[in-house]
């Protein structure tokens, strides 16, 4: 392929990747203008709100995707986020008070490390227990919720009024974290054996195992990364809402199901780039829709119905698109085969 060809290919792919977020922005901007008289992102605070919810949705959805596409629907992701945030965040607060380090960064790092450790442990136990991942996720969610509740006097993580946490709401800092996460995860997926093995396992676990891939190590790494991403997600959510309270009763499962739209849309967009960039764009799109609807003043249940109807429409489109795409490729192959036969016949 020539340099021009490469450039054209790159531009085409970039354009397709950004198409959906841009389209969503335009639609929601018009919607907001009509319903509330102001634009979608009319104020600087809107951008901050978007950034925080976007990074939460992106990190959470990516964490779920790591296991989801390898046949492990992990219901414990919401509980892992809560665990990393509350336990890790509070440890970070104590550490910052003892050492004088920046509070916000301490909290973020400790939540990340706690999430990584928890994820590693959960993954390691899973590879030993080898029970159904859905059931395993439910059991782990029960345990983690209980631990979060029992720890720190059930107060959760309070960030409001805590000096030094303002950095977690700064746009430049959020952008920096975004960049680091995307670069690290893209590197993992595209330039390491982990990524290749992950895709191989996604195809067939048995074949991957037979060909020498250590599926257990890959699984543990998936859980470890998911836990770390969960810790990051939770801290930014805590910065936005000021406090994260522990919950019981498996209510964290709704976080997992609530982020499936971003996940599915992300894999669709990711066909033109990679899954990480795809989820990056899809989580932005979903947050733009959520913010736009919240500005409209519609009741929360109506907003939920609208979002899920959009989800259904997307799934129908995805199904038709896939069929159309498959048909198109099949037709192209038929044309090529006929052409080849004609050439051979002439020869």
């Amino acid at each position: 392929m020539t340099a021009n060809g490469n450039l054209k290919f790159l531009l085409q792919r970039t354009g397709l990747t950004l198409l959906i977020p841009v389209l969503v922005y335009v639609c929601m901007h018009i919607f907001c203008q009509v319903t509330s008289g102001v634009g979608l992102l009319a104020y600087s605070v809107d951008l901050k709100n978007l950034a925080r919810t976007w990074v939460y949705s992106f990190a959470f959805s990516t964490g779920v995707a790591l296991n989801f596409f390898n046949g492990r629907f992990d219901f414990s992701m919401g509980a892992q986020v809560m665990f990393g945030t509350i336990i890790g965040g509070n440890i970070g607060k104590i550490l910052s008070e003892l050492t004088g380090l920046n509070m916000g960064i301490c909290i973020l790092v400790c939540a990340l490390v706690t999430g990584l450790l928890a994820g590693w442990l959960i993954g390691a136990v899973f590879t030993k227990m080898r029970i159904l991942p859905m059931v395993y996720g439910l059991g782990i969610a029960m345990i983690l919720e209980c631990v979060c509740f029992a720890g720190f006097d059930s107060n959760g993580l309070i960030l409001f009024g805590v000096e030094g946490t303002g950095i977690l709401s700064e746009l430049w800092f959020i952008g920096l974290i975004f960049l680091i996460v995307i670069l690290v995860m893209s590197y993992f997926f595209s330039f390491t054996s982990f990524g290749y093995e992950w895709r191989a396992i996604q195809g067939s676990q048995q074949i991957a195992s037979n060909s020498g891939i250590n599926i257990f190590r890959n699984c543990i790494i998936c859980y470890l990364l998911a836990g770390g991403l969960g810790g990051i997600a939770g801290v930014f959510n805590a910065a936005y809402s000021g406090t994260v309270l522990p919950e019981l009763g498996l209510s964290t499962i709704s976080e997992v199901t609530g982020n499936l739209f971003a996940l599915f849309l992300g894999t669709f967009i990711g066909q033109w780039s990679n899954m990480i960039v795809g989820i990056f764009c899809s989580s932005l799109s979903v947050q733009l829709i959520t913010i736009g609807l919240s500005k409209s003043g519609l009741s929360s249940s109506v907003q939920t119905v609208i979002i899920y109807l959009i989800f259904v429409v997307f799934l129908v489109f995805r199904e038709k698109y896939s069929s159309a795409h498959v048909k198109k490729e099949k037709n192209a192959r038929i044309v090529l085969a006929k052409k080849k036969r004609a050439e051979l016949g002439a020869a």
Partner: protein
Amino acid sequence: MKKVLSNRWLQMAFPLLLLILCVIIFSALTGGRFLSQSNISAIYEQGLIVAISAVGIAFIYTTGNIDMSVGSIIMLAGIMGGRTWETTDSTALMFLVTFAAGAVMLYLNNVLSAVLGLRTVMAAILMMNIYNAVGAELLGAESISIYRAVRDIGKSNARLYIALLLFIVCLVAFHLTRLGRELRFTGGNERCAATVGINNKKIIAVGYLFAAAAVGIACVFTLIRNGNISSVASSMGSDLMLATVLGGMSIFGGHKSNCYSGVIGAFTVVILSNGLLMLGVSNTLIQGVRGVLFLVIVYLSSEHPDTLPSRNQFS
């Protein structure tokens, strides 16, 4: 130990033995209070709805599909029935509408998954959120009290007889008919099943019919049991999964599936919860203790493959 645990007869009997063991342990630790008639009654009442749903849902699990929207379906069907009762003051009509709504909504998941080309679990999660939102919009934080209308029905044995009848019908259909064999075959390997002439979509649809009937009945039983309708969806979806697995059946289906595991598992769950409460386990720790016990029990009663258990839940 591994040989003992992998013995097929022990694996079959394990869930029941476990249930009996739990009863014995809790009885001993509570000085016999656990076996009081009031407690046994409570266990029966609390486990019946999950048991009924599990008998029907087994037809779905057997084919390798999972449906988590049962809690939301029960909620929304109840609201529809409740609104009917408020309008017509007819308990019979309320039951009829609730049954029909519950059955139709569950069957809709199958239709949707076929149309969208998704696994049922995805379609079910989608519909679960929509049902929750619709329920919240219809009823909000209000509730409809129907207690006085259903109190006498709740005291009668009608529910038990209906449950037994459903159980026998499902048991016969699942274990003694071709339908059951085809369901298990489809769950074991869809491609092989298709190769030998089994119409996978049709058999899954028939399985859904049984599940829809069972869930419809569960919706009605929920009305009778609760005597109150609200827009709070229960955790029935995850309860069914736990009950089925605790009862010794894989939720990924296959040839070893059966339709009575959920019954055993449902009562095991309730016995565990009641027993822990009776033993005075702190209310803040009870969930964690339950989680640990679940994982241990599932570990002991499950087969452990050489590779990792997984199932593509996307499409």
